[in-house]
């Protein structure tokens, strides 16, 4: 178990983390490349102010709530607070930052981190249930949507249990290994799934410029969504 933990903390972690960073960086580079190379002319007259304000308005999306999905949307928004704050600013993780990159970040207190973690876990469970039981969301959800929620849930739950040995029914080593491995799987998933919105979010509004549908684009969308048979 000791060797497994060392391997997961050392080479495997580096691999996953580097993979995530490079993968996200690749998205940024490709976005900028395509914007400049393909849409150079359009960018010149782009309404930058509107784009930036629009992007900012989606950071706290209260304006964009639709009455029927307000509960789902707010749970989704609130879960982001814990998902961003806890992994980065948790005191135990600050030590990792310092060890790897020499960064000296401020940390949140462990009590606050516990509250945030539990809050995030509750939000994730609500999201999962919404997707599973509410008809509208169920219709929109694919396998990957459920998988993403589970994969975000796992490191939080296992991390919480690992840091509270009294509530932990399993051994500490086992929990820690689950925590690290699930986080690493999540890292590797990030660049290739919807989770890439970590960086792509900032290009979301600009990509309005991308939209220039070709003839027959609607059919392609239908093909991709429902398969060719559906159309016939």
């Amino acid at each position, binding site marked *: 178990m*000791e060797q497994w933990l060392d391997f997961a903390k*050392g*080479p*495997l972690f*580096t*691999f*996953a983390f*580097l*993979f995530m960073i*490079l*993968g996200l960086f*690749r998205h940024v*580079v*490709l976005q900028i*490349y395509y914007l400049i190379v393909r849409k150079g002319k359009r960018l010149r007259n782009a309404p930058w102010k509107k784009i930036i304000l629009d992007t900012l308005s989606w950071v706290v999306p209260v304006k964009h709530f639709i009455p029927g999905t307000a509960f789902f949307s707010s749970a989704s928004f609130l879960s982001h607070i814990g998902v961003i704050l806890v992994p980065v600013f948790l*005191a*135990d993780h*600050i*030590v990792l930052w310092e060890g790897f990159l020499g960064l000296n970040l401020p*940390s949140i207190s462990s009590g606050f981190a516990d509250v945030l973690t539990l809050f995030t876990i509750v939000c994730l469970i609500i999201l999962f249930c919404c997707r599973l039981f509410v008809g509208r969301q169920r219709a929109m959800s*694919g*396998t*990957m949507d459920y998988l993403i929620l589970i994969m975000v849930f796992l490191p939080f739950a296992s991390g919480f249990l690992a840091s509270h*040995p009294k509530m932990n029914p399993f051994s*500490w080593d086992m929990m820690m290994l689950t925590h690290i491995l699930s986080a690493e799987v999540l890292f590797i998933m990030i*660049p*290739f*799934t919807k989770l*890439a919105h970590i960086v792509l979010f900032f290009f979301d509004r600009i990509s309005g410029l991308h939209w220039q549908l*070709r003839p027959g*684009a609607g059919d*392609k*969308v239908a093909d*991709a*969504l429902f398969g060719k048979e559906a159309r016939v």
Partner: protein
Amino acid sequence: MRTKIYPIKDILWFLAFLGLMSGIFRMWFGLGVTTNMVDSIPWGLWKILNMVAGAALATSGFTIGMLYYVFRIKLFKPLVVPSVVIAFLGYGSSLFSLLFDIGLPWRFWIPFVSWSPHSFLYEVFWCVSLYWAVTAFEFTPSLFDRFKSEKAARILHGMGFGAAVLGISLSSLHHSSLGSLFLVTPQRLFPLWYSSLLPLFFIISAMGAGMMFMLLLRILYAHFYDPEPVFGPMPKEGAITCSLDGTPVKATGSGKDMPMLETLAIIAVSILGVYLALKISDLFINGSWKYLTAGTWESWLYIFELLIGTVIPILLVALPKSRRSPTGLGIAALSASAGLVLNRLDVGIIGYFRDAGFVYFPSFSEWTLCLGIISATILVFLFFVENVSVFDENWKTRHVAKGIFSGSFDNLTHVLKSVLSETAQRVTLIAVISIPFAWIIQYPPYHESKNDATIVQPSIGLDALRKSLRIDGNRDGVFADFPHYEHQNRLGGEESCNNCHHLFLPGDKSTPCFRCHRNMLQSTLIFDHTLHVSAVADSEGFSGLHPENYTCKVCHTEGSVKTASNAKSCLECHNRDMGLADVKDSSLDISYATSYQRAMHGTCIKCHDLKAEELHKDQLNKCFICHKSLTPKDNLIDKMREPKLLLVENVRSESD
């Protein structure tokens, strides 16, 4: 047509990124950690394969230039530009790999200003860098073609003859000098490969096999991009050698370029034939044929090398049937090129380092950097082939398939589908996968324990009672014989142990040096956390389900993050059992032990410096006092053993 090259390009990009990472690690951590080279093996794969063999394969630049400009064989006109591109890229990559091979890469320009004309390598350096400049000059017209600057192109084309002649003289100079490099070490190189004709062998083989390499590239180009001139007209207009479902379409007859390629092959194998004849007659004249019949693996290697380097190409080209088929010519060319590379490896590494003490096998970093540079060179070559008029002047009219944008609205990922069509997306995806992979495979600290050369071995007793010790931590042959018993006696018997043995493992007495200073070149962490956790649990008498979980607060301050900085100082517990009773500073950190080399040097030299001053023996703190293997036999070291001679030596040096 170009889709066939895609998987090959992907592999090349992957290797190139692996090479990029090993290049970064080589610059970051140094040669000692990333390569398997040691003091007795001062060069390895990079120098021989990338530099010597790479430059030899790129000789077509001057051989084709010679055939076209000097002998006026107009037949070879279509090969002039590609041969120059090959020379430019081959020499460029050779010089680039040399940057990683030399110890202080940022001082590569020193030979330009600090002249040392007696050195072969100095001449090689000058010729190679000048020749590279010449090939760059020869290559520029093609670039001007690309940018439609016809006037500049015409002027530069006109200067081609002068550049070619300059290139020919420079090439013939440095190729023979590379051979001369091995000429000066007859005692090291295996007799089969050693010969006073080495410079001649090097240049002749490079000329013959260089042409064959050119031929190989021409046929490969035809295979991947433009089959008609070589493989003959295709069955259908605009069809491809490989149809959509993957079945090959047979070509009919042979193309218009085949006569030229056949002529080139005949010239090349005649040169290789001369080379073979010279080599065999040299064996008999030198009398080293007895090594050939000795049946050792060297003799088999030598036979194999001659077989693939010369005999197979000569046979394949001599037979009319295989000569007239592009595939036969391609195999002959491949075999000759491989033979040339093998020859350089034999002379430079396999036959050369036989007395080095152990077998040199390149480390993973060496392989990846070597292959990475080669891959990057091929990619640049492909870039030129696709974007500049290298092989044919009609490249503009050829259909160049742009990456096809397939609007893939994938409801899961939106990434994977479009990745396969766009070059930028493909390449970046390969980078994202290969760089982390290269990191975990090559990052040196992950592989410290596997690098045996830096792990310290205990000293060797020179007699049964270990009165005299041979200190050779990494067993690389540079040792120091240490009269341990004599030092003990001279410094005051048992009482004197603490002079050198400054720290013991808990409960031990006079712990040997290598138990803590475990790495030859790097500091070692000797603090074992796991061991401490269980030992503290035992000594404090913890019990229950998880006894070891209670131990944290014994050393770490409660309520804070547990790091080394807020842990208890070592001396709070270990003030008695590790021989540190005299140390006053209670915060002394003993968790790291310096490198073995530094520990040995520090301890010995400090005392020897003092004694040299005290006893007025100014030789006492010199290197060869301990490292007797570093000095030639007739040096001062023998005289040092006889006090009288030493005096004479001292007097002489004073009078000087």
